């Protein structure tokens, strides 16, 4: 049973989220204060974090950054503002996905399940540029040294590496990696490609592994 940590200061919403999550078979934990989130996270070791951006104590973006510094656990932001700036800031601080209030319970559950879904791992080893990817071990190595990626970043790199001949559009990546069924915000892709590049590229300004194809999308490097 997957554990979901809900970090939100609105008690009614937290309770409602608990009801919905339990109905879907998740184990829900709660935290109503940003400053306590880190402690509860370390203690409970949840499989996923639902994080409200507006929190008393320290705000959601800071919480997100702190959790991300220690763990690759999927983080889904809850935001009441559709503002571009908030969403981009949240994604840049390490969130994997976001969902704008008010949302439908089904939509939320779908997002959570997509983030928790494990690929059917086959014993497979891929090479992309000077990186080697071990699919079962969920690890990426360069010259024998591990590069630490979040599960989402790993999935993104894996998708590109599996079909090095294919140029992925942002919409395709949203479908393949985020498992969105409807067209969604392509900024998700942009932000995460940037984060991925900052980890795997020698020089993120001149990428050699995750290449941009102008006007189309991205593809794996030669």
């Amino acid at each position, binding site marked *: 049973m997957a554990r979901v940590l809900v970090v939100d200061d609105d008690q009614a919403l937290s309770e*409602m*989220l608990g009801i*919905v999550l339990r109905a879907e078979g998740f184990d829900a934990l709660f935290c109503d204060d940003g400053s306590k989130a880190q402690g509860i996270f370390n203690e409970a070791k949840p499989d996923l974090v639902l994080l409200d951006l507006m929190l008393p104590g320290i705000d959601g973006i800071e919480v997100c950054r702190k959790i991300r510094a220690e763990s690759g656990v999927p983080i889904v932001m809850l935001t*009441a503002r559709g503002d571009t700036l908030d969403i981009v800031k949240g994604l840049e601080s390490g969130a994997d996905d976001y969902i704008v209030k*008010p*949302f*439908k*319970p089904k939509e939320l559950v779908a997002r959570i399940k997509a983030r928790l879904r494990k690929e059917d791992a086959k014993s497979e080893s891929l090479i992309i540029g000077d990186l080697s990817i071990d699919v079962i071990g969920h690890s990426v190595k360069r010259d024998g040294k591990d590069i630490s990626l979040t599960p989402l970043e790993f999935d993104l790199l894996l998708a590109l590496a599996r079909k090095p001949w294919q140029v992925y559009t942002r919409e395709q990546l949203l479908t393949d990696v985020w498992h969105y069924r409807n*067209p969604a915000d392509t900024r998700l892709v942009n932000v995460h490609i940037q984060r991925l590049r900052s980890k795997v590229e020698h020089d993120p300004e001149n990428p050699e592994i995750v290449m941009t194809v102008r006007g189309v999308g991205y593809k794996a490097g030669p």
Partner: protein
Amino acid sequence: MKYFYQFKQAWNKSLSLRIIATTFAVSTVLVTIIGLVLVNRVSSGILTSKESSSITEASSAINEAQRVVVATDTGAGAPTLSVVVDTAVTALAVRAGQSGLYDVLFLASPEISKQGLPERGTNLVAENSVNDELKSRVALTDKLLWSYTKIIYLDGRSVPGLVVGAPIKINNVGTYSLFLLFPLDKEEETIGIIRSSVLATGIFLIFGLLILVWYLTRSVLAPVRKTANAAERLRMGLLNERVPVSGEDDLAKLAGSFNSMAASIQQQIGQLEKMSRMQKRFVSDVSHELRTPLTTVRMAADVLYESRDQYTGETARAAELLSTQIERFEILLSQLLEISRFDAGAADLSLTNVNIKNVIEKTAESLSNLLARQETPVVITGHAPDIEMDQRRIERVLRNLISNASEYGAGKPIEVEIGSDDDAIAIVVRDKGPGLKPGESSLVFNRFWRADPARARTTGGTGLGLAIALEDARLHSGWIDAWGAPGKGTMFRLTLPRVAQTAITKSPLPLGTGEDEKLEFDMSALQELFNVDTKSEN
């Protein structure tokens, strides 16, 4: 021709060129007139005094000649005619002196000249220095006659001069004509000097004037230009732009007024920005405060709705109503927030280069459920070049127009036409439903306006869709207009500039059909005329 246009352009553009050219033209005309009058007056004065002194001298010289002739002729042992003539000419030459005050021609009158009579002149003066007309007139008169002439010498020289002539009677022979030729070369020289100095003065004066005018224009225009530049920078948003004020003249007043205007604009813009910020903040807060409980309610409603089978009929229906109305409430809330964002000026564009046809196809695709339910096909024709637009907003506009068309289109195909010209692209969405009634085409964009209040409530529209669509178009510096006629369907036309946020005045596609279109056009032209009039009255 090309240079003429270039000049005309420069002429229209440059105030200093106009002033300098005008000054040049006017001063040249004035100086020329003054110079001509001056030279004329001076030279006629010089010539008049020379003339009167010459005539005085000539009259006494001629008297003396007559006396000499008479005296010589009546002496003892009457001398030959040539001696008489010689004596007279010599006497006159002595009288004229070494300075060459005048030269003498002593000629036989025309009627006796054929007889080989002696004629004399001094200093190689040619006989044709005196014209025939004067010669014949002198022969017939007994007075002094004079005229201007050109004195010609046998060695080829010639000088301007005054010739004074009178008849001399010689006994037994007849009338001789005596001509005294006064050279005017000195006077001519003086007049030449005066003429060239007047010319030099005139040119100097004109150039001096031009330099003065150029300097004055510059000193007046420089602050004006500076102010114009400052105004331009102010327009670009540099609200701190001011011009330096020096002195207390009109230009300083201009600079001062400009500065106070800039300060007042800056203050007002600051105030507006502050209000807009507050409004933005308020909208954002309201949004947040409303959305969190709404999320809870929405989830609760969904949970109830999912388990509605467990309730009795009416409770189950209540759960259903709760769920659908919350959805409607949500849409309404988000549209209200969107509208208030427009009102606060807080809406911004995120531009990308997009092909409109793709956007339309994508929008129709996303509406495929609705379109299938209404059994309404969408026919897309035409194409347009890629333009920069906020894809999310334009998609929203198109979704609104197409879903409206399918809702009111009575199942007939929706025609979407794309067109473009050099400045703009246009999309016309047309349904063939019952159509708008006259006068409704301007009302449809009003907030919460409904064509048929009784009907629309059931279809779930919020009444804000077209108002938001219009704002979205305006944000791109484009517009949406509508046309409809009973039985002919409804048309909505979205016009967008090809270069984002540049003003456009006409749409590449027509709105309406045939005569109605023309009527519509005339009406709007009239309306515009009316608007302009009322504006100018205010």
